[in-house]
């Protein structure tokens, strides 16, 4: 067979594979879009939470997954976004729709102020620093007057009936999630993505080979912070009440890391797999907790945190590349990149 013919054949199969992928993605998106008007209210709410966490996990994944910088304070950007929307909306009468991009901008500014110096640190020290910064922000928000202190902020509600309301948030989170997934998909195939992976694999040689590590890490952080800030703003309008304990909860930071890890760090599919898996697990555990008697007494619903912790330990030790790692191993592909 001549090489020209071979090239033609491979090009055609490649083209066909992309076509199938595109059709599959379009079908999935179409299905999710139709579901928004078909399924009952509580399912709409549950799926909105799934979309929000996928959005957060994809934003976290840009720096955490591809570049290997574990940010244990993702909730900082999320909370800053939520509070920016809250403060602007209730105290400065800014239109709610306008507060959402502004929240993203504010989160980016915070990322620039605290994250960029933090990026001078590597490995575990970066992780600890981001953790402490989320505590610091929480203390600050609890004690400032403008944020309403510990008593929080009541958000204005949208002028629709409850079901329409939920549907609006469903589509808002769905749209943003798709954007974030698409972004991750593109990053994974771009020079930017390759450079981030180079930073994860070995930062010093990457720098020597001409990768602008500092600038790239900063971009990855700011991008993630912007998306998390936007997510926070929409979350604020969705829950209609924000206060420092819940909005800056460490649980959110840990869940985002755990969900990305379970799905597979540094892959665009990771959060898409990990988030529903973990949220379904949590839901099942809560249902089981109500029914299963355990050593003569019923299990309190909070025990899902313990199970989450055990999953975190097991996945980190036994399957550090998550579900995607297992999938790739089955397919016989390489584990990374």
């Amino acid at each position, binding site marked *: 067979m001549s090489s020209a013919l071979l090239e033609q054949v491979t090009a055609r199969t490649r083209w066909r594979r992309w076509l199938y992928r595109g059709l599959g993605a379009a079908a999935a998106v179409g299905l999710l879009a139709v579901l928004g008007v078909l399924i009952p209210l509580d399912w709409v709410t549950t799926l909105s939470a799934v979309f929000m966490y996928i959005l957060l996990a994809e934003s976290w994944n840009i720096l955490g997954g591809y570049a290997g910088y574990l940010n244990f304070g993702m909730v900082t950007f999320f909370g800053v976004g939520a509070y920016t929307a809250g403060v602007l909306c209730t105290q400065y009468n800014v239109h709610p729709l306008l507060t959402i991009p502004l929240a993203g901008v504010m989160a980016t500014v915070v990322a620039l102020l605290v994250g960029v110096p933090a990026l001078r640190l590597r490995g575990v*020290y970066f992780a600890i620093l981001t953790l*402490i910064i989320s505590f610091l922000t929480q203390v600050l928000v609890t004690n400032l007057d403008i944020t309403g202190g510990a008593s929080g902020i009541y958000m204005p509600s949208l002028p629709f009936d409850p079901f329409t309301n939920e549907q609006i948030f469903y589509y808002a989170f769905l749209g943003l999630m798709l954007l974030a997934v698409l972004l991750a998909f593109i990053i994974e195939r771009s020079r930017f993505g390759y450079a981030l992976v180079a930073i994860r694999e070995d930062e010093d040689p990457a720098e020597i080979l001409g990768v602008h590590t500092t600038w790239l890490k900063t971009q990855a952080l700011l991008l993630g912070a912007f998306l998390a800030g936007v997510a926070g703003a929409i979350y604020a309008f969705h829950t209609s009440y924000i206060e420092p304990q819940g909005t800056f909860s*460490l649980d959110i930071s*840990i869940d985002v890391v755990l969900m990305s890890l379970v799905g597979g760090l540094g892959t665009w599919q990771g959060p898409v797999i990990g988030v529903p898996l973990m949220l379904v697990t949590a839901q099942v555990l809560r249902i089981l907790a109500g029914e299963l008697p355990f050593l003569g007494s019923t299990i309190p619903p909070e*025990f899902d945190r313990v199970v989450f*912790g055990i999953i975190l330990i097991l996945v980190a*030790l036994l399957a550090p590349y998550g579900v995607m790692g297992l999938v790739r191993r089955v397919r016989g592909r390489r584990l990374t990149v």
Partner: protein
Amino acid sequence: MLTTISLSLLVQALINGLLLGLVYTLISLGLSLTLGIMGVVNVAHSTLIMLGSYLALELLQRLGLDPIISAVIAVPVFFLIGVLLERLLISRVARTSQTTGLLVLFGVLVVIEGAAILRWTTDTQVLSVSYTNASLTLAGIAIAVPRLIAAAIALVLVWLLDTFLRSTLYGKAIRAMAQNRDAARISGIDTDRLSLLVFGLATATAGVGGVVLAMIFPFDPQDHYRWLAWAFLVVVIGGLGSIRNTLLAGLLIGLIETVSSVLFPFQYVYFIVYLLLVVALLVRGQGLAGSQSRAL
């Protein structure tokens, strides 16, 4: 008149700060040991401290044991917990990257915190014994008796550990291991068994630290992050490899806490310590790692 009052207030704050500083040294020692000798960043350290507080609570409520006795009981109990943790998890973690270790230890943190909430709920607890509200007054300066006892226990433990590491053969072997693990192995030191010992000792100091903290402060299953931050601050400022430097850093943090709580409203103490930790990490964090990689 006013100046004498504020002066005695200041002296009181200084003494309280030094007493607290001894306790902070104790709760930071474990973190410093595991990081300096094994290269493991134990973020679950503070949950072990929290468990120590609940051990004291259980022993007091069930058996009526004084926290001073609980502090002694905590040593073997938490040494065993540490040995188990090392065998089950840390020995596996030590062979992987530091970030994998961090993820695993975050998992341990979540499990212990979740289990503590299930067992003891999120209610705030206090240890109340006969001397809880007692205080000694000397030249117009009042010192709370529980703080005095807590500081004394901490001092004894810090001194014991320092002596152990400096003057015994085991201590020498551990220090050799901190300097160069491979060279220590070649010289015939069983580093795996010593890791077990080090992690056991680190966990024991956390347990006793929890008991003595419970004598001074109210506690609940979720406020241990505060102690994690405090301990990290002591470790970052004190550096690795010297208990005396850890002691100096611990005393400094104790002083900073009490003096700033005289000057500012209570809630700003958290803010100040977190901010100090951010600055200290930025200035010294990587230096800490650097000196560690040189030592290892």
